[in-house]
């Protein structure tokens, strides 16, 4: 995320790096505004980090390749 271990604004550095990876051009002013929003979400995400989840706790929705057939093949 950053070359410096004590980056004064690691979220802004992350925003710059992630946006570059996604080919999303951002001005310095946008980086600043986006960082404020991402910091707010980071605080919420941190609460979820404290929730114990086991390996078998699956996501809410699982991709289905096709609906399960109602009848067995003859």
């Amino acid at each position: 995320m950053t070359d410096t271990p004590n980056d004064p604004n690691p979220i802004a550095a992350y925003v710059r790096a992630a946006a570059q990876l996604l080919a999303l051009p951002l001005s310095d002013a946008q980086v600043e505004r986006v960082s404020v929003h991402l910091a707010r979400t980071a605080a919420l995400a941190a609460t979820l980090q404290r929730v114990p989840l086991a390996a078998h706790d699956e996501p809410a929705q699982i991709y289905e390749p096709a609906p399960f057939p109602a009848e067995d093949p003859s």
Partner: protein
Amino acid sequence: MIAAMDAGAIAAAVRDGEYRAEQVLDACIARIAATDPQVNAFTDRSFERARREARAIDARRARGEPLPALAGVPYAVKNLFDIEGMTTRAGSKVLLGDAPAAADAVLVQRLRDAGAVLVGALNMDEFAYGFTTENSHVGACRNPRDLSRIAGGSSGGSGAAVAAGQVPLTLGSDTNGSIRVPSSLCGVFGLKPTFGRLSRRGSFPFVASLDHLGPFARSVADLALSYDLMQGPDPLDPGCHATRVQPVRERVDAGIGGLRIGVLAGYFDEQAGPDARRAVALAAGALNASAGVSWPDAALARAAAFVTSASEGGALHLPRLREHAAEFEPLSVDRFIAGALQPAEWYVRAQRFRRAYRDKVLALFHDWDVLLAPATPVSATPIGAEQFELNGTLVPARPSMGLLTQPISYAGCPVVAVPLWPNGATALPIGVQVIAAPWREDLALRVARRLEADGIAVAPIAALPD
């Protein structure tokens, strides 16, 4: 006065020959013309189509044919629903160059088949990412109860049009509260059905794993009537989980005898202002509900809903953000970008949490049939407000209007938002969420109907200045 009639009464009057559908339409158009310069609920008018639909109803009656359940009832839809021949805005400017929709959204098709008359499309937050309908492209939707205040969002036009008496019925979408928040702030009834109940095909998505569609009305009977007519499986919509119709209309007057009704405490009390608490107390008193019910992991669910919405919404719009960020709504573009950049682990963790959360919520409904909670922390705030005061703390106005709705929709439970007036009929309304277990819309509607029948929850047409 036709504008004062609810949808069921209009359909009955058209069936009985008291009014022609075209007369009803003329009255509706006149009401929109008189009020929308103040309210700004409509972004598009489909009056030519409406004229064709109304005349077709009158012709059917003249031929002696039986008329369908919503014959001649004017309605309008949030402008993220496809309307054949019109470009679907989804509250944006960047979609205006897209081709017109080739067909109506499924729910619009179903209301059309039921004889309803579509008069236009309604204002909303851009791409449904907001709770205020302060749309910078077309102007803010103003609350008919107080024109200086927000209508709520993101389906603000849908709530305001019903409150202003422009139409008796509208459709909106609810990802995190976008039906329940405008219902609360505009003082009308709204139904957010179970996640996966109604087809979303032909509506512009925001967060596929959370988006719901549903109706607004001024009576519980109209919610039930329109909801029944929109039900039905849709094998072409992978998000439509209902495989059969479960009608509710004949059950809403069954009363509340035997129902175990509780009031949510903890998070739902802490995040509510004084008016919201008074509204819940009024409803609870009328229903003899039990206080002190604890909803599991409400704050965590709100956090997970926030993360999920940001990630899916941001990813959905990333291609447009690369090319057209300057044309996005200034109030939400930075949130979309932040969402697109979120670490994947945040999103996956939120979805894994959701599975465990679902099981806890379902367990709660072993002990309760219906639960009550405030719909919004406060009543409508002034347009442009950046913050509001919540129990001594200033909180950011735009995201905080969804504090009380997000945990419920993250579980996918059906909710009827009912309008209460804790400070009197001339003050601002505020809503109460009537919550049931998944697939039990009938129970929530029965309780809402009792509150309406007792005069506790009412949705009069707003008195707008001339």
